[in-house]
């Protein structure tokens, strides 16, 4: 085989790879668009009026996740399954965003932490790598941390909207989350940096609770959390 033949042959490899990347990129763009739409729906909970119809917003978001599932289904077909990590970077960002959105919906619905299994189910992907296109555990955790920072914003805005009970509940939830993360031995990577940000969210929410407490606003609500939910 001459040098020219050899390089022509190699060019075949390179083109195939570039085509796959191009295909993935297109599906990811569509996913990003849908993710942005879900975000727009959910962000309206920060509006003073938004607190009233959280359930309807969640329903709407759940509907949009149908579209997401269609596209994740498509994504899987674009590359050989065992090369997940070869192209991981291409969808990593959007998958973390989607995990965040799923976690946020679940929190708004039930004030509970979404599990990795639930997120995978909402996105119609797998939990175990062996079974196919899956949700990497680090991407799940990144999504959860993005939600934590959204919750600190929610704590502030719920006070503005006159809901004095929610911050306390958020505070408890975030504290539990913080303890959970403290169990993990994170490497010095982007996830670690994101986790360092959690400290600020915790502090921020504690200060909201403090402001309510010192004015005697926390107590009065504490008595009736059942009714409010």
């Amino acid at each position: 085989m001459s040098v020219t033949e050899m390089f022509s042959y190699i060019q075949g490899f390179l083109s195939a790879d570039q085509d796959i990347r191009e295909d993935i990129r297109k599906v990811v763009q569509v996913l990003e668009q849908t993710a942005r739409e879900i975000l727009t729906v959910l962000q309206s909970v920060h509006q003073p009026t938004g607190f009233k119809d959280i359930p309807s917003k969640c329903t709407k978001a759940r509907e949009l996740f149908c579209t997401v599932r269609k596209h994740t289904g498509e994504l899987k077909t674009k590359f050989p399954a065992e090369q997940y990590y070869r192209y991981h970077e291409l969808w990593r960002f959007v998958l973390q965003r989607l995990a965040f959105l799923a976690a946020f919906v679940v929190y708004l619905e039930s004030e509970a932490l979404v599990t990795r299994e639930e997120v995978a189910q909402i996105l119609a992907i797998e939990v175990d790598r062996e079974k196919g296109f899956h949700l990497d555990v680090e991407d799940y955790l990144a999504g959860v941390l993005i939600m934590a920072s959204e919750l600190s914003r929610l704590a502030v805005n719920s006070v503005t909207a006159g809901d004095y009970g929610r911050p306390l509940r958020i505070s408890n939830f975030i504290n539990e989350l913080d303890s959970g993360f403290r169990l993990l031995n994170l490497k010095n990577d982007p996830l670690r940096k994101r986790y360092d940000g959690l400290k600020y969210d915790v502090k921020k929410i504690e200060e909201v609770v403090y402001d309510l407490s010192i004015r005697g606003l926390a107590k009065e609500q504490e008595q009736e959390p059942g009714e409010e939910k």
Partner: protein
Amino acid sequence: KIEDSGSHNSPIIAAFRVFQQELDSRYDKYERLVKISRDITIESKRTIFLLHRVTSVPDVEGILKEAEVKLDGVRQKIGLIAEELRGEDLYQFHRAITPGIQEYVEAVSFHHFIKHRSLISLEEINARLVFIRDSKGSDESPSVLTFQIPASDFLLGIADLTGELMRMCISSVGNGDMDTPFQLSGFLREIHDGFALIGNTGPYEVSKKLHTLRQSLGKVEDACYTLRVRGSEIPTHMLADVFSSRAVPLDADDNMA
């Protein structure tokens, strides 16, 4: 012999003399546009600066009128740009004018918000950038020049507007204005959600400003939160009293300036 005369008669040199003229006139135009843009920036910034006084003085109308006059001046300058770009490709000189144009969008949208409490549209802005010019041949009818602001500059100007809105909010709180902060937070949230919808599909510069926008929104939300929390300790009408009594010495002070 050939080499010596070369530098004078060679076709290469002749061609380069043409390039020289072409490049020089292009660069000169570019420089002129940069200068106009810089003037527009300065004057727009001054307008914004002036508009911020609405939070601390009673005569809002007067300030709005003064700002309107300033903005008219800026529009005259944009007319100069339109004239320079007559028959040209706007995007060839876009880099020269984009800072000024963005700053104008910021100023005019700030003015519009204070007056109407709504977001000005690109069409509304462009509608005021129509210029009537006497034609050079004096007996022809006057020609109409327009300037169309690119969507990206509009977006970038609006992104910067959010920073000004945040500043206005902080000042309002400082001066005891109870309504503006809440209005601002709603408005800012709408703009924020709008940008979130666009996300990274817009030009790179827009994505870059998203972080600042988010921070501004956070500051405004914190301010509203503070008002609510503090307001909880006293009935609202009393709150207004407290601050209106404070407003007087401030005004006096400002009138001196």
